[in-house]
């Protein structure tokens, strides 16, 4: 049960207030929350959903976008929550009730001066047993794409051993099918999945018995399933940081290279680490890529983040970063060691090894076009120094 929703701007100023129940909450409470920055419970989960829907509608979520579309935001909030309890959160239904802003409606409003983004009729799906699907959508394209998007989480300890490596993956489906199709998707090696979570459209019984995903898909892009594969042994790239302190200076060198070749190109490689507060200045030079040192203020502390973007690994040499850090006066050695966060992307492969077996259709007039893809990127991939 929620009593009110406030949308705050980046500076903590209230942009929008919506009272939900008779127990009014003064907007001055925001100031307190701004300092505490805490949130809990199911309500929080709902707020996340609100944020998702809003950014879906507005194509992002920032101060300007909310101000530009505050009427839509109000209308959406009103539709999503009633008396503190969620009413309609299914994006497909919302889209039919309140039209998202788009170029056409904007142009229309400029030209004619009138536009209504509120639908005159109640979406039929509210009454259906598959509320996530628009009733009888007509699609000219008859196609469905299934993507395996995986994120690799790994911890590599100080001595270079792999402490933990696991994959968090999502099965993302983009479906443009007409009518009320019934799809079944099966995996060749479902047994490697550790934990799973499903979109509400997935029927749970077939999964329980045969590990088959049987579902009536929503129209458009959605997350069919998320999964986790634990205890992996192979990481695609290695990062070897070395720090040695000596009389107020710290020499640093970082080496990056391929460890287990995924046989697909690895790109968007980045290495990031935070300079400890006791570092006064840093002089870092890479032999490949660029280095940026960014200052960001988190609460009261300044954080200096050093970010080295490498991109693709060059063929001829192993990229390395070296340089010196000047420590604060009185410090002989660096007392703390930063953690290096690594980012990368491998197109065309799911590193967990999960393989889709087949995708079957029922209830469709013609065979649609099917597409499969894999993608792996780094999640919380950290190397300790």
């Amino acid at each position, binding site marked *: *049960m929620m009593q009110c929703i406030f949308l705050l701007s980046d500076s903590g100023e*209230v*942009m929008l*207030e919506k*009272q939900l129940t*008779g127990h009014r909450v003064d*907007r001055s409470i925001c100031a307190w929350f701004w300092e505490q920055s805490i*949130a*809990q*419970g199911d*309500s929080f*989960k*709902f707020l996340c959903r609100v944020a998702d829907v809003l950014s879906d509608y507005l194509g992002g979520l920032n101060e*300007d976008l909310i*101000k*530009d*579309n*505050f009427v839509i935001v*109000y209308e959406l909030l*009103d539709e999503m929550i*009633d*008396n503190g309890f*969620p*009413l309609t*959160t299914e994006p497909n239904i919302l889209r039919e009730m309140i039209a998202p*802003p788009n170029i056409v409606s*904007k142009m229309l409003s400029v030209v004619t*001066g*009138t*536009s*209504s*983004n*509120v639908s005159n*009729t*109640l979406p039929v799906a*509210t*009454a259906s*047993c598959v509320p996530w699907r628009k009733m009888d959508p007509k699609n000219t394209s008859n196609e469905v794409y299934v993507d395996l998007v995986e994120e690799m989480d790994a911890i590599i*300890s*100080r001595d270079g051993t792999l*402490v*933990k490596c696991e994959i968090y993956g999502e099965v993302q489906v983009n479906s443009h099918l007409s009518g009320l199709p019934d799809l079944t998707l099966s995996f060749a090696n479902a047994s490697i999945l*550790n*934990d799973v*979570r*499903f*979109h*509400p459209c997935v029927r*749970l*019984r077939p999964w*329980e018995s045969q590990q088959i995903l049987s579902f009536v898909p929503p129209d458009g892009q959605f997350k069919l399933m998320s999964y*986790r594969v634990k205890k992996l042994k192979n990481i695609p790239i290695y990062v070897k940081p070395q720090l040695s302190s000596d009389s107020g200076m710290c020499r640093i060198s970082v080496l990056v290279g391929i460890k287990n070749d995924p046989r697909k190109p690895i790109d968007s490689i980045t290495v990031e680490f*935070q300079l400890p507060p006791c570092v006064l200045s840093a002089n870092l030079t890479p032999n490949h890529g660029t280095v940026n040192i960014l200052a960001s203020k988190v609460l009261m502390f300044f954080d200096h983040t050093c970010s080295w973007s490498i991109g693709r690994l060059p063929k001829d040499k192993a990229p390395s970063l070296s340089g010196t850090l000047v420590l604060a006066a009185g410090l002989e050695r660096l*007392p*703390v*060691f*930063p*953690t290096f*966060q690594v980012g990368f992307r491998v197109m065309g492969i799911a590193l967990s090894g999960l393989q889709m077996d087949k995708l079957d259709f029922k209830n469709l007039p013609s065979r649609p076009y099917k597409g499969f893809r894999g993608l792996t990127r780094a999640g*919380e991939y950290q190397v300790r120094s």
Partner: protein
Amino acid sequence: MFTQFGATAESLSKASTMVFRIGTDAHLYDDPDDVNIAPLLDSKFDSEKCEALKRLLALIAQGFDVSNFFPQVVKNVASQSIEVKKLVYLYLLHYAEKRPNEALLSINYFQKDLGDTNPLVRAWALRTMAGIRLHVIAPLVLVAVSKCARDPSVYVRKCAANALPKVHDLRLEENTAAIEELVGFLLNDNSPGVIGAAAAAFASVCPTNLSLIGRNYRRLCETLPDVEEWGQIVLIGILLRYAIARHGLVKESIMLSSRDLENIASENGASDTYQKGNEDSNAYFGLKESNADLTNGVCKSEVVDIVSRSYLEGPDKYLSKHRCADVLSSELEGLHFTSAKDNEDIKILLLCTSPLLWSHNSAVVLAAAGVHWIMAPKEDIQKIVKPLLFLMRSSNSSKYVVLCNIQVFSKAVPSLFAPHFEDFFMSPSDSYQVKALKLEILSTIATESSISSIFQEFQDYVKDPDRKFAADTVAAIGLCAQQFPKVANTCLEGLLALASHATDGEAIVLLQAIYSIKAIIGKDPSSNEKVIVHLIRSLESIRVPAARGMIIWMVGEYSDIGNVIPKVLPVVLKYLARCFTVEEVETKLQILNACGKVLLHSKEEELWAYRKVLSYMLDLARCDLNYDIRDRARFIKELLSCYIGSSDTEEGKAQQESRDVSRVLAGRIFGGQIKAPSSEQFSARFYLPGSLSHVVLHAAPGYEPLPRPCSLNFEDPSINSNIVEGAKRPGDGATQSESYTDDPDSVSGSLNEESTSDYSYADSIGGSDGTGGSNVSSSLSEVDVHKEPLIHLSEVGYPNANPDGGSHVDNQYSGSNNLGELISTRSLESWLDENPNSGHNLSEPSSIRKSSARISIGHIHGRVEPKICALLDPANGNGLSVDYAFSSELSSLSPLLVCLQVSFKNCSTEPMMNLQLVEDNKRQDSSDHASAMTESSSHGDVPSLVPMEEIANLGPSETINIMLQVRFRHHLLPLKLVLWCNGKTYPVKLRPDIGYFVRPLPMDIGVFSAKEAQLPGMFEYTRRCIFTDHIGELKKGDKPGTNDQFLVICECLAVKVLSNANFFLVSVDMPVSANLDDASGLRLRFSGELLSNSVPCLVTLVLEGTCFEPLNILVKVNCEETVFGLNLLNRIVNLLAEPARG
């Protein structure tokens, strides 16, 4: 725009955002009031209205008060444009409470929209109407909701379910029963969407009325997977509560694992075995210990025990009686158990919640996990582990929530999470709170096999840039080392290295390291002598006072251990003596203590040297600036006088005895065994998994522990909800937050008590009891009967046919003709339903009854006990409890004022100062405008609250009663006040009772009849209800006297009415009939006049039925004030129909 083409990249991007913003509402947000809004609202074009409304919305969003546009906006509610409607609704909902009178103007349009063919329009109308939250329209909303609950559209039904909590929020007692009935109806819906919303309504309207669930339990379980995710969360909680209240806890579950299993096995409803267990609580605890040993760390039975009790009783209640174990065990043994294997209801609950563990909504997963945690057999709990761990890979905040829950689970059953320790390794994106929780969980679930990997991790964490986290890691290392003696040595080495390398800036890490070392050494001091020596050596370099203090404490504590320490002691003591003066206070205290201990343990040959050092230090300490140190010095000197001064009194044998005493004393004080601080978890609070309270660790508003197991004891759940409610109430009535639901208890309780005492009564016409029936028919009553305005009843529905009635409504609500119309329509509706009956009823007595007797009941005022309502709950007011009761006294200041008896009670142990009730000023200002419109000018100067004298002091458990005079702005709208106490303010709400907006108007039966005849037709309102209170009274009295029965009934009725309303009892007419049990025709008349305008108001109750059966009562109100009369009628009917609870 076009001039910017070909500009730089920066201005291009600016231009593109400009283009992007075209057509959006940006300009409206940025300058909402750059045009005059008022004329736009009156425009005849929808687009202009839209723009104006959007501007208003922008102003609301930015926090401006634009309620002054209210009248103009409300007009637009009639618009046909959906968008205008939506925008008006948004505006209306924001300000309706502030501008109640104007909001009423819109009601008519909502009514119209409710009949629209478009379900969206119906749903919006209902949502907005319910959202307006005005007491006056509550009956209308309720009718609308019950209509919409049967709507063909799922969406509208869903909105109907959502509207119920809004109506319930108004706290109108007369609606409670109807609302609960609707909740039950909607729970029966066949659409999962509606069920979800109905579950939410149930949870906020009547969470304890579990019998409603009983009827549909199986079906609800089966639809659970199809319900919307948000509904699932609520429904899971409700089903869990029902299952526990109905069947009790599951004996195979973790909740009961700490209890003696054999006892449970032999227990089969009979409680003798448990009684035995209670008598010998030692044996009981002994059994428990052995049980824990048997399970061998599978679950920590003590923790489980506390957890399960906290779930059932709420931690506050549980902790408050923590000390008295007897109470506890007896409470515990009263519980009943069931088995998950045999019980179908529980099986189905577990079966239907287990697929929800795969839900993509974390809150659903958490709720489902909670059910399995509490209800599933121990061996099946494993199921919840992986889903819970998977939840952690989401945002930081949900991670924190999940970890809070895992923390409790892992404390109770470490083995559950032990194999998954890797999941709790830190990731750099974790916030400090998350890291701290993970550390705690890691040190809880560590096992022999995992400890080495965990330590590897810990070593990395110690070097983390977040030093607070590093310090926590050090503490966790200490905890683990104590748990696993094998690794203690490695830990000590690491910690020592850390302590010696720690720099000055690292005070917390250093302190924590020394603390951990100290704790580890405490386990086995003798084998860790080297560590102590090492620490002593490093004293020179450690400068943190608290850390020094701890090392010095170790010097004193372990001064007699091993070979090396005694050798270095003299040097150390001299060192300490040298630097004594420059130490911090806490270190100085430790130095003094340590020296004392050393002296106690020292052998003869060293005694002299130590004694010298100590006397030197005591001398220094006696001149110290800090009085604590001076005190300590004096204390030690006295205590150890036998050691210090022994050179002088060595030979004095006379003092030998006293020296022995002080020697023993000193030994006890300095050498006493240090008890390990009792583990922290015993003071920890446990709340239900997944609840907000669990995260914030205090009972959040609305938190309720699980119901008492098997409190719902009935065989067929569908039979009778009333019985169930009665049976359930004693169990959890205390936790009910609604003050008014409890109140009937107190009122009817007192009624019952006093009815046993001898009441005296006098017959006005004839003699004493038993003969009343012989006093035959006065002519007046005959006339009265014949004058019964039967015909007028059929005219009720046409209020505007009578110009007088219409104009009256107009006065009350500036031009709100609609309201009068609506409310009259309502009365028509309600009347139409009952028309055949009431007509019949009224004609019947007149035809059958030939004669009647009139009795008067004297001294009834002695039994009248006004209902007491809570103004401030002691839980919310720091122990201050404020109750109020409406008083029948009349104010001498103004006829508009209502008198209240307010009693302030201090439930805390500390006195309270400066108590005062004052008006809520903000409220006052904003509504001045509104009130000026409704009140005639002559009453405008009457304040809402006659200033109350301040109570200067209210001692503990003292009660002060004060008479308060207040003016309610409306007979249904609460008055907001502010209660000052100890300089703090508490906002409170006085809820008006319509029964006290009248004052008694004494009159005789003739005048009454005449007045009644003047108020026919639309000024007369009737309703029926069932009255049952008298049955209990009659049974209690158990006197077979003939007229006694009638008297008891009359008194019951009269007392009940007079306890709730300020009326004058005009007469009681009794039928004289052949059948002694037939109470039909009993007639009670009450009269009063409205406080505000002295309009008379007459109430007549006519009974029908036999004495020992529930009586059918026809309530009739005659009053010129339509709205008031209807509301009064509702109030009376509800109070009569409400059964007396005792």
